[in-house]
């Protein structure tokens, strides 16, 4: 019983710690890491988590590809 409780807690806690380690890891793309943590690296992912993460990655790519918006009034 004790083993069960511990392993149950550890799976979720392990993922949380892993997410944290990923986001602060040197040289990692922080925006991408945040997407991975939010959608994938969770103990209770949404049924459409892959699709959601892909949309977020695509949106990030589009955002980075778009030229900066020029403001006429400075």
């Amino acid at each position, binding site marked *: *019983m*004790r*083993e*069960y409780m511990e*392993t*149950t807690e*550890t*799976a*979720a806690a*392990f*993922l949380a710690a*892993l997410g944290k*380690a*990923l986001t602060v*890891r040197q040289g*990692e*793309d922080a925006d*991408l*890491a945040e997407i*991975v943590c939010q*959608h*994938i*690296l*969770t*103990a*209770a*992912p949404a049924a459409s*988590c*892959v*699709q959601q*993460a*892909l949309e977020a*990655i*695509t949106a*990030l*790519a*589009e955002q*980075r*590809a*778009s030229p900066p918006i020029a403001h006429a009034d400075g």
Partner: protein
Amino acid sequence: MAEAPYILETLLLSGFRAYLEPKTFDFGTKRCLAVFAPNGSGKSSIVDALEFMFSADGTLDRLGVRAVDNQAGVVALAHNLAAEKKIPSLVAVRFKRGDKKLDGSRDAVGPLRPRPAVADAVTACFLVPPIIRGHTLRGFVEAQKAEKRYEEVARWLQLGPLVDVQRNLRALRQHTKATCMDRGALKGIDTRLAKQTANTIMAWDDAAVLAYANTIVAQVDNALSLKSLDRIDPALVTLRDRASVEDKQLGLEGLRQLRQTAAMVCEQKQGAVGGGIVTTGVIPEFELAKEAQSVAMEAEAAERHKAASAAFAELWTVAEPLFAGGAPTPINCPICATPIVDSVAGSAEGVRRHIAGHLAQVADYARAKKALDDATTTINKIHARLVAVLRALRPLLTDLYADLRAALDTYLGAVESWKGGALPDAAALKASLHQLTSKLDASIAEIQTKQGDKAYGNVVTKLEHLIELREERELSVRTLAELEKLSTALNGQAAFISGEIRKRVQSLLDTLRSPINDIYRQIQGTDARPIKLELPHEEDTTQQRLNLVVDFATNRKGVQPGGYLSDSQIHSLALALRLAAIRQFNTAAPMIVLDDIVTSYDANHRRAIAALLASNFTDFQLIVTTHDERFFHYLKDQLGETDWHFTRIIRLDADFGPRFVDHRVTDAMIEARWHAGESAANEMRQAEEEWLLQLCRDFGVNVRIRPVEKAYSYERSELAAAVEQYLRDQGLTAPLVPGVNNRFLTSLQRGAIENFGSHFQESPHGDGSKGDEQARWKEFKFFRGYFVCPKCGKTRFKHPFGMKRAVCANEGCEAQFEFTAPADPTS
């Protein structure tokens, strides 16, 4: 402090699978159960009941939910006679957890079949499926793919979320890569480019597109040329300015509408014949109608004078037939009686001519009058149309046409107030309209000349479409490049995550390795080669696999077991995996259900498994079913009677269910049936059978050795004959029951009795009523009362070897058996 584990206390099957009548397994005093039965007797239904109770969907793996793909569907859960006999189809459990008793029941019919809360709670404790069926054991070792095995073991280790992460991460990497490779957006842009350039350019090429853009510019101004396809290119800025001026002019459609409306009022144009000027429109029509009306008025006036005496027209009309040719001529005037010959006409012929002349004058006048009326109607209609057309033209005349608008207003006012007299003067308006239409014709022609690619607005629009396409394409190219970078970064992050998960999984796998091999060696012997659970190498990108390998020999290390191990070794390996995992992870609900797991084993291995259960799982609740009698005996030999209940199914009755060798129908159960208003015929029959069988055992009667195909049960007639023979050998005869002539034992031997409730009757069958059943039951109990110890009143006997007659089984009594009349026949 950890909570107490869940222990199954009772299991009830009612109308479920092979069990029609309710059957309760009581684990209260002995928490483990071993059931021996031949195939097809209903032993697996016990395992089915537990699988059903714990299943998520309220079904069994082999049934599925729907009756497709060779699966029988959930309909097969219920006993086929349950509905007909109105027996509820369900499984009920009672679990004990410390001092708490937790009950739950699950219907086996209906669309929902919800799992009770206690089963939810217990199922949550099963990290490893607790039910092991012999026929599925091989699958884990041989048929199961490494990926599936990884998933299953990871879930045993409570690493389900990590498996999901790995699976989702793998899918995300694949989808991201596929999105990087997708050139659909660029192809779409090429398609639109081809359409915009009329298939001149089929695929994007900066220089070609710029050249095409300049061909468009040249159509409106040869002097202009784009340096680049850019919104701020000077040539495009110039074109945009010109288009803006163009936009402020009255549009072609507006000009056409104005010209058309002006022409409806009045238009001078070249005639088709002779080349003269022709004037058309409502004003000339109005003028012509006025002329026609004037002519008609003059004609009417003249005719009206000639027909001044038209007042006599009626008289002439009446007189005409009197003087018509061929008719008898009147001698005197019919009105004034003057003789005709004395009248001015002088004769009837003279009167006839006079009348005809006057009638002709009246007819001419009538024609002139009608012509005038028609002309007046026509001019009034044209007048109304003229007013309408003039009013329609008025709002179309902008300030650019102020003079014309003033002339129109003057003329319109005069026309509106016209009452039929002289026409308003239209000369000024007609001249202005003529100027207008000439001017409009010139403007329209100019615009039409510039239509198509030559219009500035159109050119600017086309250029801007091309610029939009260029911008869109560049954005797509940049986005794909960014996606490529993100995909690469994602691979790196996935490798990091996967590596961390790998370390975690491997460390937990290592905890399983030792117990698995302990169990495996216990079954297969101490020299059995160790089994290893291995993840792929670290650099392998497909980490979500679990290899099950064995060092079979020095030159066969790390090989798949399926290729080298024997059938029983593979079974042992699979069994060891499951049992070790259950042992390690299912401590919150320490239950193991084993259904026919020894089919592949020889006698030594069966004994080894029995020993394994006896030594390693004493703190578990085990439920074992087997059709292997030898294994059943090994279990009995090695497992303690304190914790274990051993029983056999002797047969399967289609209208009852499995019959257990130790099943007892009590008198109270029979009374309860009657109390519930139900028939107790089956219970009576079973109670009487059980009593007879027990008596045979106690007396140690001689029975025929059964044929091999009927090894498990004795027929009533055989038992009855054996008892009677035994009594006869003892010099005893069972007394008659008062008021009944038939002898119970004799009736049974004759085989004439189908229903135990009627065996004392003259008629072989009772009427089946409740009263009849009760009468028969009372008689049977009286007969049973003869088999009571005359000294202590106990009902069990024994016949020790060497003694002449059976004695009371009560150790303090051991009085010799003899018939004694029951003191109370109903007791």
